[in-house]
């Protein structure tokens, strides 16, 4: 048996599209948070590093934070369903290795989600710098940027894979609406409860799809106390939680694909 082809190569037009979205979202963040940011770190945390629990009842901070996930879903939410619809007949009348095909598709999606987050956070730092903001400390800026990018990437991968695997059973639109609605409600609920009391963090940290909010996990001081730490070493917990969740979602997807009827 040879390789199982997925027919995927670097897609320049998709990369340009992601760059365009990144610049647009970064510009929105800079325009929104520049006046209240004392440093690049502040800007990074305000943009996609945290959800302000004191304004969470307006839903706007949650919606703004979720925007990059909507972009990811718009570009990748139907990927596996489309690939199956298009290529499954030719592939799966030649090989039974559906699992290996699905893992390759998951890797493809994951790497584009990471690329998008790198472009988004990179654009935010760049536009912030051009606007005149400086880093309070290069080390902190690095730490904050890496932390935010890592958590958002893992969160994005979890979301995109969940939507894609759910669309093996439901329609792609229904899957997207269900998962994104759940994420919106989970973040809103978590934010609202944290506003009442940070003691809720112990329970809330287990709620799926809320671990991507760096500011709810990190204990880092940026000079203006932008980051509220609810649990000392939460970033590591959030990262591990999401890695385990991604593995669980992947296992469910693998189980599903082997039994899937291809119409």
């Amino acid at each position: 048996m040879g390789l199982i082809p997925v027919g995927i190569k670097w897609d320049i037009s998709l990369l340009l599209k992601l760059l365009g979205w990144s610049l647009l979202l970064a510009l929105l963040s800079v325009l929104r948070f520049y006046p209240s940011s004392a440093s690049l770190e502040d800007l990074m945390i305000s943009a996609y590093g945290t959800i302000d629990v004191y304004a969470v009842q307006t839903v706007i901070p949650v919606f703004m934070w979720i925007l990059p996930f909507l972009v990811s879903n718009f570009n990748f939410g139907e990927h596996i369903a489309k690939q199956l619809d298009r290529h499954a007949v030719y592939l799966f009348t030649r090989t039974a290795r559906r699992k290996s095909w699905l893992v390759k598709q998951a890797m493809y999606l994951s790497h584009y989600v990471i690329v998008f987050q790198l472009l988004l956070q990179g654009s935010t730092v760049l536009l912030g710098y051009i606007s005149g903001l400086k880093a309070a400390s290069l080390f902190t800026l690095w730490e904050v940027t890496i932390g935010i990018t890592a958590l958002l990437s893992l969160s994005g991968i979890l979301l995109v894979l969940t939507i894609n695997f759910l669309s093996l059973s439901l329609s792609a639109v229904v899957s997207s609406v269900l998962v994104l609605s759940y994420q919106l409600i989970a973040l809103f609920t978590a934010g609202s409860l944290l506003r009442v009391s940070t003691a809720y963090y112990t329970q809330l940290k287990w709620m799926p799809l809320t671990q991507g909010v760096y500011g709810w996990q990190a204990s880092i001081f940026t000079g203006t106390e932008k980051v509220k730490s609810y649990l000392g070493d939460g970033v590591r917990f959030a990262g591990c939680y999401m890695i385990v969740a991604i593995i669980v979602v992947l296992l469910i997807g693998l189980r599903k694909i082997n039994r899937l009827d291809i119409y």
Partner: protein
Amino acid sequence: MSIIQLINVSKNIGKSVVLNHINLELDEGRVYAFYGSNGSGKSMLFRAISGLIKPSTGEIIVQGKTLHKDCSFPESIGVIIESPGFWDSYTGFDNLKMLASIKNKITAEDICKAINRVGLNPNDPRKFKKYSLGMKQRLAIAQAVMEKPDILILDEPTNALDEDGIDLVRQIIREEKARGGTVLIASHNKEDVELLADHKFRMKNGQLLNESEDAK
């Protein structure tokens, strides 16, 4: 000797019955045509025989092996079901090369021969997305025959083809039969059915209604 056997095969999707108690025995080296209106179950039957859908009840035995029990799909099968499913940003040759790499049993030369056989140029630098509908269909036929399968399943193989293309497909079907292959075709084109089929089956509402006596 029967190469394909369906025993009381039914398939339900939700509440609708798309295949309804199908019993069928097909012999080696013959051409079988399936006809019937849209939604009559021809494509579903082909998908079931190809191992792409699992019957709700019944058994499908292909070349002595029960699908979804002894194997998940027939070992030697070439398939076209609905529109060609190639990768847009690759050439025709590269598309076939990628598919051939799965079983890894034919050479680049075999792929070129299959492409030439359907009247296309293996060295055509154009990407698949630039192909006309007829060219896409021809490449799909090359894909189905390139590995010289024992069973060829062709759902509407003359779709989008001009007269030359239709003649070519008919010629290929005859050659495959002469090679000893078993060919199953579904076609709206009555001429295809009359000219090519050794045996005809009519489908309606997921049922195999009747079958003609041997035509040839």
